[in-house]
């Protein structure tokens, strides 16, 4: 039996995504966000996570998905990155899944745009494909972005 890996999964516009469980700090209910003027649109704001200030990135905007329809309150998946914790705003939280290497495939050719560069590959699950997110890339904010505004 090959090694298995655990993933925290969530949905974005009905697509299933997964982040390696070890990289996830916690999953939390929506918190009040303070907007950051002049920052890129993907930056939805800052939240107070028990005294720690955490930036919220809208994963739909980051991956160039259509805007979240009103009525869906985004959930926070707080992930560890190299320097700080970042919260990814997603539509809905899924299960924790355990998968082996044998189901893994590199990103399919048909995938285009931002999604392609932000995922490491896909796991073929029984019902659906799970996109494995590269957390560093998913949390990246282009430098030019923050400048001057």
């Amino acid at each position, binding site marked *: 039996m090959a090694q298995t890996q655990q993933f925290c999964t969530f949905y974005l516009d009905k697509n299933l995504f997964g982040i390696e469980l070890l990289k996830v700090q916690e999953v939390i209910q929506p918190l*009040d966000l*303070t*907007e*950051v*003027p*002049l*920052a890129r649109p993907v*930056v939805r*704001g*800052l*939240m*107070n996570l028990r*005294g720690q*200030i955490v*930036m919220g990135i809208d994963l739909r905007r980051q991956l160039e998905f259509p805007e979240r329809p009103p009525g869906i309150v985004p959930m926070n998946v707080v992930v560890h990155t190299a*320097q*700080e914790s*970042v919260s990814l705003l997603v539509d809905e939280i899924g299960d924790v899944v355990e998968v082996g290497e044998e189901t893994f495939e590199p990103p399919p050719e048909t995938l285009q745009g931002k999604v392609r560069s932000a995922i490491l590959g896909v796991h073929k699950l029984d019902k659906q494909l799970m996109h494995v997110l590269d957390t560093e890339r998913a*949390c*990246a*904010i282009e*430098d030019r*972005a*923050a*400048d*001057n*505004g």
Partner: protein
Amino acid sequence: MSDDIVREFLVESNENLDLLDRELVQLEKDPGNRATLASVFRTIHSIKGTCGFLGFTKLESVAHVGESLLSKLRDGELLLGPEITTALLEMVDAIRQMLRSIEAIGNEGERNDEPLIRSLTSLHLGEKPRAVKPRTTASSPEARGPSGAPQGNTESIGEILVKQGSVTAKEVESAIILQEEGDPRHLGEILVEQGSVKPRQVLEALQSQQSIRGAASESSIRVEVGLLDKLMNLVGELVLARNQVLQFSNATEDERIAAPSQRLNLITTELQEAVMKTRMQPIGNIWSKFPRTVRDVAAACGKQIRIDTEGKETELDKTIIEAIKDPLTHIVRNSADHGIEAPDKRIKAGKPAEGKLSLRAYHEGGQVIIEISDDGAGLDPEKLRRKAVEKGLLTPEHAAKMAEREVANLIFLPGFSTAEKVTNVSGRGVGMDVVKTNIEKIGGTVDVKSVFGAGTAVKMKIPLTLAIVPGLVVVSAGQRFVIPQVSLLELVRIKRDQVRAGIEMVHGAPVYRLRGRLLPLAYLDKELQLSKVFEDADVESNAVNMVVLQAENRQFGLIVDEIKDTEEIVVKPLGRRLKGLKTFAGAAIMGDGKVALILDVLGLAQKSGVVSKQEDRTWAESETESQEKSSNKRTFLLFAGPDDARMALPLDALARLEEFPASQVEKSGAQWVIQYRERILPLIRLKLVLEERRKRRRHGETPEMPSEAQLQVLVCSHEQQTFGVIVEKILDIVEDRAEVKSPATRAGILYAAVIGNRVTELIDLPAILRAAELTSARETEQAEVHS
């Protein structure tokens, strides 16, 4: 032997060594000072005594030869010279290294102190250094010198022990007799071994011997820094909790909560202040090491340097003290190494042989200013320019254009070093840029001014503390922002009916006249591109709220929707991902638990253009910096006259600045006029007054009017006459003393002066009025008014 005793010994000895550094340097200057000599002797003696007692033999042997040498000095058999001072300082360094090793691994470590011991011994024997038979044991009687035991003006250990009642005088006496008979052991050792006293008592006696020097020791205790840090964090949290409670109690009418929350407020504030104070340290703690540093540099380069300090009691937070220690040392070393010249060079330049290095610290506007200045060679601007071009940091054109002051600040660029030769002290091209980065990291600024041939001065502005800062909460477009109190000057509320008259436009930029001074304005919602939540309808929009802020010695007004309360905030960084946003200094968690952004006043000012990033800023800054002289200063409006001549008018002669479309200009007799505020304003075209006066007068014609679409007009008053002067372009408003003057070279000009480092002509309003022959226009105006 308990670890506690060792630790205490280490802490104490380290302090003593610092003291030794200072005293030895002092002593070198004044070798006859017996009090200092005695104090040096006592210090070494007590270190030696304690370490012998604790079994650190290597340490003891080094301290011992030092002590022997010192005893000769004390007895006047030898005179302290540079050679001996150097040897003694080397000994201090050796001891320091051993202490470090003891702290780290529990013993003195593998080391060879023979050369040091030899040189100390030969100095002690009054010989020139030569090979001496290596000594193997730590305390051979011969090496003890003529006076092994403490004598003279200090109370001896024996006396103290007797006073403590630990031993009888007789026991001490017999121990001293043993010593005199050649017993190599210390008095304390003998007594302990005889069972007369306990080791602890001897240690106490040694300590009380030291406390003769430091009488304050009884009223203070040592506390771990870690504990203070924790206390600080807890207070930070308490402040936040207090804010939440206050917000709640303000929202309710309940008396029962109002009183206790008010008390909680007061106590928290006081507690916070007290805790902050525990972390405050005088800057003298770092400075006290500089005499030694400077002495070493001076000795290595054959220079004479005197170090003057002022304000060493100025206190800063411990973390800040730590952070500025290395940068300060670096600057001091730089000054000593290649700021101050060698004595012969100095004499040739007409300066005293001894160079002066002065350190000054003082409070100013919630910050601490530290100045390090020397009367050395200064920075050679040409050399700096050349170097910058050579290193490809600047283009030759840019370098040539740079103001002298900016050139001096080139030394803060990475990889920039003008030292011709690399010494072991400095000049490796790393350093000043690191100094700048480190100072900026803690929210400070650093700036250098230099006069070539006369000296260099480095000025640092350092915040008092990092952790908690008071901030003003403002609201713009429904969003909350915090402005650090440090940059806040005042709050101004402009009533609705005064808004139109109060806010004027200078060259397209809004300004407000605050007590006769024109203040550039920025709108927070506009700068941050916030979308308005509501438009005009609200009561709030009846007035304009302005926050007057200070950024880099320039002031500007920030227009916000609402001004709330001040709050204590804990500054948290925005994180790497948002670092690019120069308009925010960080974020804070507010009393209601939500996050608010802290405005970076300087970043905001630069973004909105109220503080320009261009050349002109540097001089404006340098001029306003010397505030003590500001009483002699006048504020001038700078503008471009005909043919781009740089001209100025004292601001008090100016009523308003206006921009008129040329199409509104009308003709009245031989005079161009414009309708302005229900009056007729005669217009003078400066160009014509200055240049074509003669011609025009001859022909008696109306001068031609300019064809530009918009006219820049200075509305001035002189002897109850109001008139407009048309200029080419309005440049800026600056403060300057306008000291360097030269007589006018043409009519209509009062004199030429240096304003903002550039020659500027001051226009002579009465002369211009006469030249323009405005008498007729004046009659027209009066006729109009009377009709």
